[in-house]
């Protein structure tokens, strides 16, 4: 049984079609990266899964339970972190996590232990008795993670979990998410591709409410990543580089050339021809190279290719 299944979700807000027949399946125990540009429908999807919004048509299941019909049973099986978590400002961090423990019906002893454990886990132990009203955005995000884990949920829904965190906090949170792999299913929306590359084993890319691709990360890279070379020259030779870039665009084995100051990224259709021709062409053009390499395909390449190209599964 899959942990999360979505079939044909449609959701419209006035003139905006937020979800347009979205469907996907998430394997239990995986860390699932839900990627998409701003306005792609990520938050709407998560809110529907959490039972906070209703789809116009289509269905979603968590742990085999239909989201719209079994909202109350599902509530006990999920942990949810919204994009901008809000808390009662008059409560302390400890009181808030304890309150959530009470809502889930944890016995007193277990609740106290779980509260301490979670506050320690997210790095808020030292400020546990400080009122939440004075917390920074990053501290709020950590508290949001803690409250989402209180009930040891089989499914964890995280909407942009690392937004608002400093680099150290982001690293810690990603390590925490990695540790959850196998223990629970993590469904995590984000637009930070590096984070997805680091922790997610499976990735779905959506745009304008439609699924563009869904596969294990390596498979996705293999399927969609395009071979690319990077050519870097000294800063003073950027103009020469740009002129050379124009000349190679017309070759049939060149798919795309992009420039970033003194670096040209050349996406190619045929790696073998490119290996023979590209370097020779650069040398013939009189470029003095600082760097020339066949770069590892990244999720960003896949993402941009799919989103900008409007690719489909």
């Amino acid at each position, binding site marked *: 049984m899959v942990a999360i299944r979505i079939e044909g979700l449609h959701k419209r807000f006035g003139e905006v079609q937020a979800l347009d027949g979205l469907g996907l399946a998430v394997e239990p125990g995986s860390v699932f990266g839900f990627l998409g540009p701003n306005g792609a429908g990520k938050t709407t999807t998560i809110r529907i899964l959490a039972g906070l919004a209703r789809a116009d048509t289509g269905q979603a299941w968590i742990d085999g339970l239909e989201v719209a019909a079994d909202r109350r049973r599902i509530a006990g099986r999920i942990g949810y972190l919204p994009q901008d978590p809000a808390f009662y400002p*008059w409560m302390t961090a400890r009181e808030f996590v304890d309150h959530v423990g009470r809502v889930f019906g944890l016995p007193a002893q277990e609740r106290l232990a779980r509260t301490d454990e979670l506050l320690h886990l997210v790095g808020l132990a030292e400020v546990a008795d400080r009122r939440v009203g004075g917390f920074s955005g990053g501290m709020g995000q950590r508290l949001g993670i803690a409250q989402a884990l209180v009930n040891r949920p089989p499914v964890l829904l995280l909407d942009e979990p690392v937004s608002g965190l400093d680099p150290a906090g982001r690293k810690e949170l990603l390590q925490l998410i990695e540790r959850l792999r196998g223990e629970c299913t993590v469904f995590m929306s984000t637009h930070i591709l590096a984070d997805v590359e680091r922790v997610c084993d499976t990735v779905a890319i959506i745009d304008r409410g439609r699924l563009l691709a869904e596969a294990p990360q390596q498979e996705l890279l293999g399927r969609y990543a395009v071979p690319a070379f990077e050519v870097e020259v000294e800063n003073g030779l950027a103009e020469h580089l740009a002129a050379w870039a124009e000349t190679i665009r017309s070759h049939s084995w060149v798919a795309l050339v992009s420039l970033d100051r003194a670096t040209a990224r050349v996406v190619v259709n045929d790696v073998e021809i490119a290996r023979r021709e590209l370097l020779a062409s650069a040398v013939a053009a009189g470029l003095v190279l600082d760097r020339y390499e066949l770069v590892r395909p990244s999720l960003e390449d896949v993402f941009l290719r799919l989103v900008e190209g409007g690719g489909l599964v």
Partner: protein
Amino acid sequence: MRIFWVALRKELIEQWRSYRLVVVGAVLLVFGFASPLLAKYGPEVIRLALPEGEEILKLIPSPTAADAVAQYLKNISQFGILLAVLMTMGSVAQEKDKGTAALMLVKPMPRGVFLAAKMVALGLTFAIGIFLAGAACYYYTMLIFEALSLPAWLALNGLLLLFILVYVALTLLCSTVSRSQVVSGALAFGFLVVLSVLGAVPRLGETMPGRLTTWAGGLIAGNGSSAWPALAVSVGLIFGALLVAWLILERQEL
């Protein structure tokens, strides 16, 4: 039932820490002990403040305990309604706006329980406020005028509390409908105006919540008639408002 106590516990702590209980208690307490003082010394103030005060004073009958009760009813009902709207208008709207409602209602917290706990906590806040006001007014009236009938006094305060709870429930409904506490406050004042207008309509007015304060005043004087239809309508309005609020919240996207 367990989850209701969890929700109520949170609401009661919030009433305390957000100073709502203190504000309601303090305001009603002030008017509780000020009412008999105003009844007693109001004419005296007129005499001292106006050039023809002595002449005017001759036209005013000597103040009695009934005047203290009338002052009390007028003050507590007016300020009670004002406090009911002010203390309730943000209770749901603000939670929806800030996102705490969404964070809590994805957990096993039924939306009806979420609302019921708020209503009970606000009811307890106003019950404490009226208890303090009632005790202060009773004591000062006894000192300045005479002791009032305790059972009648308790019944009067019970009716007064019920009257205020009508506006708490209606404002809670407005707060559920809206995401803005200003809008919910405006809607609640709309209800206040409508009920006041209906209360002035002959025959129909006899069944409106405002009739409860008239009944309450008559309990002490021993000359008033009961207003059971108004009591039934008030209870109906409270439960009706809560029911509608619950049905709306159940369907709302957070």
